[in-house]
């Protein structure tokens, strides 16, 4: 009889639990964060619209959890040296590690990132609605996975889109954006009316801008590849020569000073109606749609990048970044940092991030009609992402050195100091040296990119 009463009470408690559902047993951020209240974490990010948006969101997290989030926003170019020095000194100052996809292998190799198994296996920390499957698989793999292990959660979805000024094109007699690279050049020529108006702006400053955004972009688009299957450089090829020659020929249709342009100058050139077309990351769309920064809000056209005539392929440039957890931070800081990353890139916060200027790697937001109205690039981004080349740039530790070689020689060719053939020959020789020294040709190092 007594046992029966106990059983009834237990069943009752269970039923009440099921009825009230979440409130009794469910995971909440507040509960998960209780042990970490008062902990300070430090976020790094690049000075770009998507990161400023996250910074604007973070006070809400602080209010919910009592975890303090400090920010250090810096130019892209300064981020890697700071993070690497942090790893080398084992300081653990930047508890959140901003990892461009090209730095992933290097950061993991330095032991700077905590494998996410550690957090995902902890039911106190993991939000049951995390839903890893909702991230674009390409981004989850490309931005955050190395050697089969997850080292972060994907941040902004970066893919190159073609942006153009519809009115400028219409005045030049075009009703549609260029379909091929050949048309792109012809239209650029027709749009150019120096010094008032130019066809295109190119982000070809002598650093990663040149390497990623244009040199390798066209190299792949024209049918080339950076490395073959044994990791031998493949820059000096007929496709490579055609691509770099094409790139140097575009300079005449760009504004004065285009050889020193970075992302900001390129985006502003379109926003100020100085040029008719640019090819830029998806994350740079928000400022083009902001009337305070852009004169072409109503005339902004967005399309998928042009295709190669030979191959008929469109190969948008693939980029992006993830947030990982610094392995040299304390255990408490690591857990608190994980909670912040999980919250910032959660399904719950993704719409808010979009509204503030973010481009999440979450699939579901790209289907929300309300968001499509404020972010007209959504459909193009979703179409472009599957076409993007995941090995556009390798993710191993030697890539920054390779990027440097490509940037310097392509830039010298762009300003006419050397011929495209000479530039590509130098690239091949120097990249071979880098790969050889790293041990890729002797089997010392695994052929993983």
């Amino acid at each position, binding site marked *: 009889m007594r046992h029966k009463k106990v059983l009834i009470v237990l069943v009752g408690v269970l039923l009440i639990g099921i009825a009230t559902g979440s409130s009794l047993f469910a995971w909440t951020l507040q509960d998960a964060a209780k042990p970490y209240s008062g902990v300070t974490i430090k976020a790094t990010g690049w000075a770009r619209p998507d990161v400023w948006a996250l910074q604007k969101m973070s006070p809400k997290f602080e209010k919910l959890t009592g975890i303090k989030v400090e920010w250090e926003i810096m130019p892209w170019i300064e981020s890697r040296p700071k993070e690497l020095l942090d790893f080398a000194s084992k300081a653990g100052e930047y508890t959140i590690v901003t990892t461009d996809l090209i730095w992933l292998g290097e950061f993991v190799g330095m032991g700077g990132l905590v494998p996410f198994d550690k957090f995902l296996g902890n039911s106190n920390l993991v939000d049951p609605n995390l839903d890893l499957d909702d991230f674009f698989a390409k981004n989850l793999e490309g931005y955050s996975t190395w050697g089969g292990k997850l080292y972060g959660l994907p941040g902004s979805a970066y893919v190159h889109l073609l942006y153009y000024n519809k009115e400028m094109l219409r005045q030049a007699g075009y009703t549609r954006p260029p379909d091929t690279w050949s048309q792109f050049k012809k239209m650029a020529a027709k749009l150019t009316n120096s010094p008032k108006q130019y066809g295109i702006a190119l982000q070809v400053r002598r650093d990663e801008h040149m390497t990623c955004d244009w040199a390798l972009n066209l190299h792949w688009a024209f049918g080339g590849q950076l490395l073959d299957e044994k990791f031998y450089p493949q820059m000096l090829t007929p496709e490579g020569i055609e691509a770099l020659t094409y790139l140097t020929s575009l300079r005449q249709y760009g504004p004065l000073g*285009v050889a020193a342009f970075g992302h900001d100058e390129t985006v502003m050139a379109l926003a100020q109606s100085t040029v008719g077309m640019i090819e830029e990351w998806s994350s740079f769309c928000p400022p083009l749609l902001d009337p305070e920064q852009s004169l072409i809000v109503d005339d902004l056209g967005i399309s998928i990048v042009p295709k190669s005539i030979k191959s008929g392929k469109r190969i948008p440039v693939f980029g992006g970044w993830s947030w990982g957890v610094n392995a040299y931070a304390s255990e408490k800081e690591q857990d608190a940092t994980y909670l912040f990353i999980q919250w910032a890139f959660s399904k719950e916060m993704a719409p808010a991030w979009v509204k503030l200027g973010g481009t999440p790697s979450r699939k579901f937001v790209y289907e929300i009609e309300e968001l499509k109205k404020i972010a007209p690039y959504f459909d193009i981004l979703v179409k472009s992402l599957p076409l993007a080349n995941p090995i556009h740039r390798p993710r191993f530790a030697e890539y920054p050195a390779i990027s440097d070689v490509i940037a310097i020689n392509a830039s010298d060719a762009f300003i006419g100091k050397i011929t495209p053939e000479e530039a590509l020959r130098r690239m091949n020789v120097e990249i071979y040296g880098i790969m050889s020294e790293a041990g890729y040709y002797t089997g010392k190092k695994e052929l993983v990119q």
Partner: protein
Amino acid sequence: MGFRSGSPSHPSRVNVGILLLLPTVLILLFIGIFPLLFAVYTSFHTYYLNRPELGQPFVGFNNYLTTFANPFFWKTLGVTGKFMLLTLPAEFLLGILVAVIMSKNILGGQVIRVLLITPLTVTPVVIGLIWRLMYNPQFGVINFFLGSFGILPIDWLGGAQVSLYSVAIVDIWQWMPFIMLICLANILAIPTEYFEAAVIDGASKWAIFRYITLPFLAPGLVAVLIIRTADVIRTFDMVYIITRGGPGTTTELVSLYVYRLGFKIFDLGHACAISILLLFATIVISQVYLRLFYREI
């Protein structure tokens, strides 16, 4: 006790002296000598900060030999030499000229002096940002100003032929006042009797400058020449902000190359080897200056 009764060679007085000096010596060792020794040590090793799997094997003089065999090193050295030839003579000529003018009682001299010194007080990073904006071909004030005289816009930072001159102009703008200040102080310290006697003897203005002013300026100018030469060799911030060494390799000074090796490729072995070579080069050039130009008055 030692202070009161000891002679200079008294042991306890010597000990106190050593104790008083010790903190300074230790700090100097820590911030000056130790990093230098570590750089020398690193220059004899392969040391990639971002590739711990390679370890730090001793490679003897290999980093130095591969640096000498690297055409890019010589190229950046050539760019640095050209930059030096563009900046130092202009800074010295203008500095001396302005100092001579400022030594006269000209109207508003005090105000002009303060204005001239202003560039010295601004950090190179801010100077780089300001000039980068001013050099902007579309929106920059320089092309706007030239345009009002009908001059076509100039591609200050993107043109292969122009970019090194553009950064040299900024360097001259910033450092000419420093030389002017040193020269002005020296000119004002020259006894006026020399000038009066020269005028009575009927000496021309050039003769007065050549035989009175210049000899008094010489010792100070040699010191400034040594300082500025070392400065130019290590010029980094301003050029990095304005051009990042580009376009192409047109403004790639050797200091930018060292930075790229050290903080982009993280090849600290080569970066340290080049730094040590530059240190030696600066010492040698200083000695050459002293032997060639230094004269007692």
